[in-house]
């Protein structure tokens, strides 16, 4: 492990609340290359608190890249420039001494800033609440091995299910589209036999809420896939598109 500290200039987005106007504030830090970027912010905050100043508000939880809570845009990249990791897994050894880091919140109309680097991502959960489930209650289900699911199908469903719902796709997209996130969820259920009864109903209700929440539409730039910390594939968006189109043309319901 390296031991020489890095001297960095941080330009951190500060914003009081969703109503106020934000701006960058400059900080100088000296940080161990073994620290993660969030640990660097912890240290900075400890220093600020000691000086009686307001610490930089940012969110994180598991710090293992699985909960999807953290999400900073570092020099333009959601979760930083290293592919396939979340912000909490980004270690300072990936930066050069003397570098300037611009640290910003995820930016999208659907993700209003609550404070500094914290944004509200509840729009994503509203989409899930609109149909991101299989309508069963607890109990009364068949034996787990009653249904045969091929390894390939199960594996494809898992590829989609690995999404951590962090919102980096929305943050990376120039249109702030949530289609990678929604596509992944729709795909997981569309692929599995358990999801078939509600397959077309589900995709329609989820897309409807997605549109209501103020996310943009996909123009197939695929920036989402490039920045996704879990490498979720845009094939999932294609699958959602197909199911949605089929649903609209197949449905006997005049109103949908």
């Amino acid at each position, binding site marked *: 492990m*390296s031991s020489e500290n890095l001297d960095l200039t941080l330009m951190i987005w500060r914003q009081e609340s969703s109503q106020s106007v934000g701006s960058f504030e400059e900080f100088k830090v000296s*940080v161990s290359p*073994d*620290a993660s970027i969030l*640990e660097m912010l912890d240290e900075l905050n*400890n220093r*600020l*608190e*000691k000086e*009686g100043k307001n*610490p930089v508000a940012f*969110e994180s*939880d*598991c*710090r*293992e890249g*699985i*909960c999807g*809570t953290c999400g900073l845009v570092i020099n333009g990249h959601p979760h930083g420039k*290293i592919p396939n*990791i979340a912000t909490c*897994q980004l*270690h300072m050894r990936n930066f050069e001494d003397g570098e300037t880091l611009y640290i910003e919140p995820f930016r999208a109309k659907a993700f209003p800033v*609550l*404070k500094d680097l914290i944004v*509200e*991502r*509840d729009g994503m*959960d509203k989409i*899930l*609440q609109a149909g*991101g*489930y*299989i309508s*069963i*209650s*607890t*109990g009364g*289900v*068949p*034996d*787990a*091995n009653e*249904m*045969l*699911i*091929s*390894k390939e199908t*199960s*594996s494809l*469903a*898992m590829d989609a*299910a*690995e999404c*951590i*719902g962090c919102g980096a796709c929305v943050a990376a997209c120039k249109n702030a589209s949530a289609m990678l996130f929604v596509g992944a969820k729709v795909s*997981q259920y569309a692929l*599995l036999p*358990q*999801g078939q009864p509600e397959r077309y109903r589900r995709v329609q209700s989820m897309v409807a809420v997605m549109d209501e929440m103020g996310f943009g539409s996909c123009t197939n730039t695929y920036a989402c896939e490039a920045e996704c910390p879990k490498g979720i594939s845009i094939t999932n968006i294609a699958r959602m598109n197909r199911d949605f189109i089929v649903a609209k043309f197949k449905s006997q319901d005049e109103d949908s």
Partner: protein
Amino acid sequence: MIKLDSKIPEGPIADKWTNHKFNMKLVNPANKRKFDIIVVGTGLAGASAAASLGALGYNVKAFTYHDSGRRAHSIAAQGGINAAKNYPNDGDSVFRLFYDTVKGGDFRSREANVYRLAEVSNNIIDQCVAQGVPFAREYGGLLDNRSFGGAQVSRTFYARGQTGQQLLLGAISALNREISRKKVVLYTRREMLEIVLVDGHARGIICRNLVTGEIEKYSAQAVVLATGGYSNVYFLSTNAMNSNATAAWRVHKKGAAFANPCYTQIHPTCLPLHGGSQSKLTLMSESLRNDGRIWVPKKKGEPRKPNDIPEEDRDYYLERKYPSFGNLSPRDISSRSAKEVCDEGRGVNGGEAVYLDFSDAINRLGQKVIEEKYGNLFEIYETITGENPYQVPMKIYPAPHYTMGGLWVDYNLESTIPGLFILGEANFSDHGANRLGASALMQGLADGYFVAPFTVGNYLASEKPEMIDVEHPEFIASQNEVDDKVKKLLSIKGNKTVDEIHKKLGRIMWNKVGMARNEKGLKEAIEEIRELRDDFWKNVIVVGDGRDLNQTLERAGRVADYLELGELMALDALNRNESCGGHFREEYQTEGGEALRNDDEYAYVAAWEFVEVGKWNPHKELLEFENLKLATRSYI
């Protein structure tokens, strides 16, 4: 004065749960919608309970301090979930899972609860598959199983290395369905800070809205707490940054007994501390020990790089001390041994880390085989440490991971406060003094899907469906209490940050109430924690405002509670003059250094009743073993 009544049903163990379900009172379907239930926490236990109760027809108010239910730390569980399906036809059964779990817990758990856990384990897998959880499968389309520590059968179901994530997303999907049916209202970014008791019964909670800082009051006929464990008392643990004991601790202070607080699990294979700025410890799957060899230099403060240290200067201490089990020795033994050699000054660079070396395995099997087996783990390691484990030995060290202790509950998962139910890691119930791998997910979901929906209903059946107004004096009193505490924390304006004090507490806990404990250390710990607590209330600095998003204030409240809980952990450890599972008292060990239980005097659950800060009344729930014979835990 509380009275412990475990309410274990009569009859043979295999029939207890069935009989109990039949004997329980039911709430008429039309009346269910007249009852409100509060569920705090949206991890596996909380989400599954809220969803199941909502599906039954109750009105559920679910609370999480996260921005979304999906973030709860259940999501980080890697390995898998146990069930007694016996799909591999290798001799598994409900009774065997029951036996393994009780034995794994070093005979310090309640037989009836564990049997029920094993009994409903199979329903969990069915439920999760029906929800669309993409468990691993074989080519034939059937579910795949793998084996895990503490069992001789393959009973662990898994979804790649993200079983916890997939199970939580499944439970959250069930919750989302109830939200869409308007049976559950989810309150996000709310931290529960107080319970409200009316006539001694749990009737509501007080929350702080973490965005606006407002202190909010919520009323219900029953309260379910599923708020996880308290490993973060150590500051550094594998728990998430926000995992905390506050909700559990505040109900403890209002009358819920806290059981076996000293039972903590220290996981042997975690990434070690790299520096003062470190915020948490990361778990590396225990499976690495199948091919990795653990060693430290023979010499104290060895300056050479690992690859430059010749064989004769290395001490493969597990292989030396436990020749039959070697690197695969049980969790507690491996953890304690690592501490021992590091305490001798023989850790990596004299610090707290030991080598986990794959060079032998790579030479023997080739890098490709190792890559296939552990590729993703090696990648994680390299991401975090910047070192290539194919070339340089990994560095690992044990870390606090799970707490078996928790709020005391009876067979119905009801605490000593009527109407307050505790689920998942937050209760003490099923794992005794040590938890086996892949059992935490099982317990959380068992409690939430298959136990609480019955037992909470049984409680409500004898309650009147009357809502208590949130302007009731008890609500106002609790609200004021919370408000005063917030104001107090903000008014100290000292010179020590919350993190500084938390780190200090963590060091005390880790050194004296950690992997190995002794009377002297525990007594010192109690003194030191008390001093630190005074220091906190005199000198802490909490910047900012109470009516705002203020993360320092959130942490300050949690650390204030740890400073009380830590003392109880030490007190409980001091009281338990034996070694069992995760609780190792240096005075009580065999000649070979193994844990020495004292069944005659300590085959009981220690349940602590809060009197005032630093003062508790002890209670005992004697453990009776009618189906299993108390035996020395041995894996040889």
